[in-house]
Every structure is written in C-alpha cells, then in structure tokens.
C-alpha cells in the first residue's frame, strides 16, 4: 500500500485542515463536513463549510463524539445525492455507519468523499463536559499514548479504529508515522486523484503504518474478548438482564441517537405499543406486578433484532444514556454474535449485502425444526 506523507506543522489537526483547504482551493470538493467547536467552546458540532476562513475552529479529531457523523451525513443526503462535492471527515465508526446507511438508502455517497482518520478513541461526553479544559489536556494525552484508559469503554475495546479495514476514500494515518509526519492513504480512485491533483501522489511506503496498526488491532482484539467475557458474566441471563435494565427510564435516547436506527417512525414509539388499560391489568394480574413505563426489555431486545446486524459499536447510545447503562457495550456484543452468524461485518464494504436482504435456498437448516 502506498500513501503520501505530510509534514506536521503546528499540530496534526492544523496540518489536516491546511490539506483540506487546498482541496477547497482546487475545487476538488466544494464543501467540508467537519466537527467544529461550538461558540460556547465546550463541545463540537458538525458543520457544513464552504468558506475556508471559517475553518479556524474545525477539528478533524475532536475529543468527543457529540453527534454521530453518519447521522449528519444522512440528514444532508437522505433525499438524494448532493449536487456539490462534499468531503466528510469522520472517525472510523462514523465511516462504517455511513456505509451501512448508504446500503439502507439513507445516505447517497455519490459526490461524497469519505475521509477517515486513525482514531485513538473519544472521551465520554459526560467526563468531557464536566471540565472541558481538563478534557482537552486529557485528550492530548490520549493521542500521545494512543487510546489510554480515559477513552470510553467501547473505544477501549474497538478493534476497527485504525488500519486497513477502514473503507473510506482517503485515510489519514497517524499510527506508525514519524514524529513530525502523518500519512494520507487513498483507498479509492476518488482518494487517489485528490492526492494527485494536490500534487502529493501516493508514492511513499506505508509499511510502518500497516505494521503498527496491525499490532494495535491485535491488542484491541484481545481487549475486546476480555471485556466482553467480563460483561457477559454481569449482563447475560434473565436475572442479570433484569438488573442491568432496571435503571432504564425508557427515554429512548439510545435509539434516537443511534445512526443505524433511522426509522421515521420507530416501532417502539408507535401506536402498536400503546395498549388498553385492560391489557395492562391482565398482565399485572398474571404476573402479580407490572412495572411502568412498560415493556423496557421488549424495547431493548426488540431493537437488537432490528439493528444489531448493522451496529458499528460507535458508543453514541451509551454517551446519550442518562442512567449510565452500558448500552453500546451490550449492543455491540450482541451485534458481534449475530454478525458472525451471517459472516457479515457492518461498514466493511459497500458491496457486501445486508444479511436480511438476501438469502440462499440451502442454508440455516439448523434453525428449522423438521
């Protein structure tokens, strides 16, 4: 694999911004979709910018993930392709969610250039908001130590945050680069020609990046396995599940921030979930006691059956949960298992079909009872 090398000036962030500005100058893209610090200074928002001058507060690798990037991209293109070229700079899990959403016809990737970046993780939103100054320092350390324990638990076990598995048009490689350099690695024709037009064709070796990211992924895979087996002991089984979700206040934040849950009308908020008092009274009588708001477990397990095949483990749900339930860790673990059944990796490739949209005549006989 070949890439281009950029010398870091000031900081990684600024160097990337300068590169993107060149792309705007040369009209390789007409606008950027990129996180920008909000005026109050304490968080980040997705901004569609055409004017270079407004990129001062942009940050391609912000300390937190406030809105899942795929959700932002989907709001722009779900009604059809963008008529102007947009470069979207996102974390790998946001790229993966975008690919899933494009398969679900909620994103049109024509005229979009996906730019991904090696990701050391993101800080938990709550931690960051408590003290943003401290958060910024903490995140500097996170980049330096590449993904230490200050990042969200879901990030600590993410094994797809760096390296070759990321299917964007252009990837920004940080791991394994020399101290004052970063890599720009094209993974599509789009990405390749952007580098050529800017005058930095992909001719340098990226061996070191490949090696370092591979090692990193291996470590993360081990972390994931370990974390999931601990989690499984605490969460799985009826009693554990009941305990885990007993704090849930049914706010459905987890669903509404999830990039994969795109439904205009969620089943769990539909009329189908609003039953007559008789129904509840009958259930209360037969169970002895019925908790309100009702159907919490149905919501979570039902949602798993709806979307876990495409869950990219981005952690947006967990960041949004006011009750600190480990929603993302649980959903992505269930996702791992169901994805394995179909030999499917969400966001891995745009060609790979969604498992529930295809079938083979001769398969899954083990689930049939003759």
């Amino acid at each position, binding site marked *: 694999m070949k890439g281009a090398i950029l010398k870091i000036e000031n900081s990684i962030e600024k160097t990337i911004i300068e590169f993107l500005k060149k792309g705007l100058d040369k009209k390789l893209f007409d606008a950027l979709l990129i996180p920008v610090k909000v005026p109050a200074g304490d968080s980040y928002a997705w901004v569609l910018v055409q004017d270079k001058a407004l990129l001062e507060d942009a940050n391609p690798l912000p300390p937190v993930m406030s809105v899942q990037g795929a959700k932002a991209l989907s709001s722009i293109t779900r009604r059809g392709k963008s008529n102007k070229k947009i470069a979207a700079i996102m974390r790998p899990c946001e790229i993966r969610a975008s690919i899933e959403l494009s398969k679900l016809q909620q994103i049109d990737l024509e005229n979009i250039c996906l730019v991904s970046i090696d990701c050391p993780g993101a800080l938990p939103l709550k931690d960051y908001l408590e003290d943003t100054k401290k958060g910024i320092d903490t995140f500097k350390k996170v980049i330096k130590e590449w993904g230490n324990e200050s990042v969200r638990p879901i990030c600590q076990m993410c094994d797809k945050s760096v390296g070759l598995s990321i299917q964007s048009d252009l990837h920004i490689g940080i791991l394994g680069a020399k101290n004052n350099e970063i890599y720009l690695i094209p993974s599509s024709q789009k990405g390749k020609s952007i580098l050529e037009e800017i005058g930095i064709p992909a001719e340098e070796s990226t061996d070191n990046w490949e090696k370092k990211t591979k090692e990193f992924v291996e470590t993360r895979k081990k972390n994931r396995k370990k974390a999931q087996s601990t989690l499984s002991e605490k969460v*799985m*089984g*009826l*009693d554990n*599940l*009941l305990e885990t*979700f*007993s704090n849930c206040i049914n706010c459905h934040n987890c669903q509404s921030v999830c990039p994969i849950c795109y439904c205009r009308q969620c*089943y769990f908020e539909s009329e189908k979930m609003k039953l007559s008092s008789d129904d509840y009274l009958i*259930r209360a009588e*037969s*169970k*002895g*006691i*019925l*908790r309100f708001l*009702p*159907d*919490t*477990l*149905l919501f979570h*397990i*039902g949602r*798993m*059956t*709806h979307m*876990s*095949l495409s869950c990219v483990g981005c952690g947006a749900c967990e960041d949004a949960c006011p009750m600190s339930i480990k929603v993302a860790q649980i959903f992505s*673990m*269930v996702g791992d*298992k*169901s994805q394995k*059944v*179909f030999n499917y990796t969400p966001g891995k490739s745009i060609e790979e079909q969604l*498992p*529930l949209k295809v*079938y*083979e*005549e001769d*398969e*899954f006989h083990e*689930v*049939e*009872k*003759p």
Partner: protein
Amino acid sequence: MEKEFTPKIVGFLCNWCSYAGADLAGTSKLKMPPSLAVIRVMCSSRVDPVLVLRAFLRGADGVLIAGCHPGDCHYEKGNYYARRRFALLKSVVETLELDSERLQLSWVSASEGPRFQQVVTEFTEKLKKLGPNPMQEKTSM
C-alpha cells in the same frame, strides 16, 4: 393433586400453508394439545422478531412460526427471508442467555394436517419438559 402443566403456545401460521394445514388437522378431528393460540399471518416473512419477543417476554411458554416449505411460499421467497430473520432472533436470544429452545420454526403445507398435529404435539412435549416460562413470574418489565 397438582394440576398437570399445559404449555401455552403462540403460533404464527402463514395463511397459505400452515394455517390451512392447521385447519385440515381440525376438520380431520385430529387430537391436538389444548393451548395453542393461533395468529394468522399472510406469510411467515411477516413475522417481525419483535412480535415473537412480545409473546415470549410476556410469558408464552413457546412461540411457533410456521410457513410453507422452502420453495413453496405463496410469495415465492418469503420463507427464505423468514428463516434468516429467525436465525437472527435465535442468535440474539442465545447471546442473551435466554431460553431459545422455546422458539421454533417449522414448515407445514396445506395438505399436512397430521404433520401439523405432530409438530404441535412434539413442541408441547418439549415445553412440558422445560416447564413454565420463567418470564411469566420473574419479569415485571
């Protein structure tokens, strides 16, 4: 004397095959286990896993989805999709370490009255061994 446990089964039967098969079992006066609640659906692929979960989490001792044999779906391929959805549902329920044995997918054609009887009887026997669904008593949510 303690009353014998009769498992409650919710059955989603496709209109064109399994429902007709069940009907045939009825008109042929085949002896059926007593507590099967039938829900007629137009095709096995209509069964969103959430519907199965609704019955299961409320305490149904077993949930059966039955449709036309593969290749015979009235809508050509509905049951192939249904099988995939069921595989997904099974996997989720298994991962959560809940009782996936209580969920069953079977194929019964319109002419298979005796087969329908057999499927329900065998499922009932299995559920008798498993005992009542703990969801009934344990969960209030």
